[in-house]
């Protein structure tokens, strides 16, 4: 018995357990793609062994197809990038017809990111998607800074957050609901609480920070949409702070898992988010640059746990002193 125990322990020590759960969905490991940076389905397959990831999050889907914002749509900034894609996407119908069948081939959990301009649109898209059994959950993007007509208001006003999440929750009682928060607020614990009160199962944080760049020669904004969302390593200290805060003040007590993101580029970054309270992490900008980072991060987390003889990643979630 004692020996048996030791053997089990031994096994744990040699192969740390990376699996985590988002409510009822088990992820083989905590590393996922971030919405809008890894395509709809298998776009990355030449460059990443997608079946080794913890989960896959699609780019945002809206009811109608969207052309997106006029170019220039991205711009490099010091250790970051601005984007004003404007939710360019094929729309729900094409997505259901062309992409969903491909998503079925994933052996890892798949989450579809949903966006919209009105509560009705969010509800319509969510209801349609929840009928596909191999979609493990919906990530509700209430925080895109690049769509003028509403999106951003949903995310910054606690009342709107509540109403939106509540409506989606009512119409989709069973599917895992991940609510993606915007960092562009005075107190993110307030919107986090609103989302949880309205029935969020998981919080995903954070979306991009509002930013802008100016071309001093043309004296015009660089981005076609004037402003954009800042992502990448530059934002990591801020995103980490927000995750830590929401975990300490809201999520831990409410027992709501957090998917942390914002500038994650390395295993060290991912571990910082996990220590701060993220159950899982998403990688966005760095995938655009170095898709191989995804599996490297998983390996790096494994090495870290092994080095410190920590049997399971779950042992360190939120363990920041």
């Amino acid at each position: 018995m004692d020996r048996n125990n030791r053997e089990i322990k031994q096994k744990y020590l040699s192969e740390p357990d990376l699996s985590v759960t988002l409510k009822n969905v088990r992820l083989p490991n905590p590393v996922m793609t971030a919405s809008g940076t890894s395509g709809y389905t298998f776009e990355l397959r030449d460059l990443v062994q997608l079946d080794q990831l913890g989960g896959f999050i699609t780019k945002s889907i809206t009811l109608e197809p969207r052309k997106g914002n006029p170019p220039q749509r991205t711009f490099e900034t010091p250790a970051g990038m601005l984007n004003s894609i404007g939710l360019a996407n094929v729309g729900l119908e094409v997505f259901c017809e062309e992409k969903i069948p491909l998503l079925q081939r994933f052996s890892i959990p798949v989450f579809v990111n949903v966006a919209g301009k009105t509560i009705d649109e969010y509800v319509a898209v969510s209801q349609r998607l929840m009928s596909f059994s191999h979609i493990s959950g919906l990530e509700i993007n209430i925080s895109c800074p690049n769509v003028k007509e509403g999106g951003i208001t949903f995310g910054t006003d606690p009342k709107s957050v509540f109403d939106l999440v509540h409506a989606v929750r009512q119409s989709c009682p069973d599917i895992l609901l991940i609510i993606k928060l915007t960092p562009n607020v005075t107190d993110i614990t307030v919107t986090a609480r609103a989302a949880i009160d309205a029935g969020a199962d998981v919080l995903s944080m954070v979306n991009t920070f509002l930013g802008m760049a100016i071309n001093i020669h043309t004296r015009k904004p660089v981005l076609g949409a004037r402003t954009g969302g800042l992502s990448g390593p530059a934002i990591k200290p801020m995103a980490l702070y927000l995750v830590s805060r929401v975990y300490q003040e809201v999520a831990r007590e409410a027992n709501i898992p957090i998917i942390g993101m914002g500038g994650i580029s390395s295993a060290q970054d991912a571990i910082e988010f996990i220590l701060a309270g993220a159950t899982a992490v998403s990688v966005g900008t760095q995938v655009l640059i170095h898709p191989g980072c995804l599996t490297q991060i998983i390996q790096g987390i494994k090495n870290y746990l092994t080095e410190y003889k920590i049997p399971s990643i779950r042992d360190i979630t939120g363990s920041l002193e």
Partner: protein
Amino acid sequence: MNTPNTHTTQKGEFSARVAQHDTFGYDIFSIHIELVGPAFATFKQAKPGQFVQLACRDISNYHCPTPLLRRPFSIAGVNIISEESLLIEVIYHVVGPGTKWLQDQKVGNKINLIGPLGNNFKLPENQDSQIFLIGGGVGLPPMFFLADQLVNYGHNQIIAIAGARSSKYLENAIENHLIPIQNPLEANLYLKQFSRSNTKCIIATDDGSLGFHGNVVQALDAYLSKNPCNNQAQIFCCGPHGMLKSIALFAQSRHIECQVCMEAYMACGIGLCQSCAVPVQTSSNTDEWQYKLVCTNGPVFNSKMILWDKIEI
């Protein structure tokens, strides 16, 4: 995972080695990057028009992620040097931090790249088609590679037009550059990268410092008025959008087929970010349009499909 089993890797992320680094012209350099192993197998298939995304920094140094994004560069040639190793050539103009970093790389240094990326030029079916390869500035590199391929496929009516603001931008690539060009519209083996495929070219400089005095469209126009082409002609071109637009309009007015290799600000180069959108007609007889991605739907487009008026030039 049930990804289709038949799938073979068409692109990859590789670490490569600088094998050669030369000056092409003023602030323009030619770098030869050696690829071996799986990278060799993948890049053996590279086609003219395709490009690579170079990491212009040590991508494994997470603490110093600047410049953050990769930089796209056309493949200017592929030179298979053994059964497991090839060189790709990239010709770049130093304009900012990424290209400045490239310039500092010495033979033997490592460069991380993703490629080959994008679609490619569609070759004319008829080997006797009159083909014009037009490149302006660092729009020339894909034309060098295209010339190699065309000649390989037996095309024999090829004239290249190399545009530059001034002769200094071509300086070190010019062969026999001391020989004055008697008739600027007479194509000859002026540029090394074209000479390797025996492709004759006309040089056009904006300031008249070498060859034809004027831009590439004027050169083409002048050439055609002296040498009207009988068989079906085709234009392949790459360069600044202003130039591409002029060529496209010229081609349309002369009913010449024209393929353009477009540029766009890219964040990923691999179809993930939707950064590189270019407005394209949905079909040739409609007003409807959509954004296509230069990095995956392009960079090569039929010039007639591009909505030039919607592009800031």
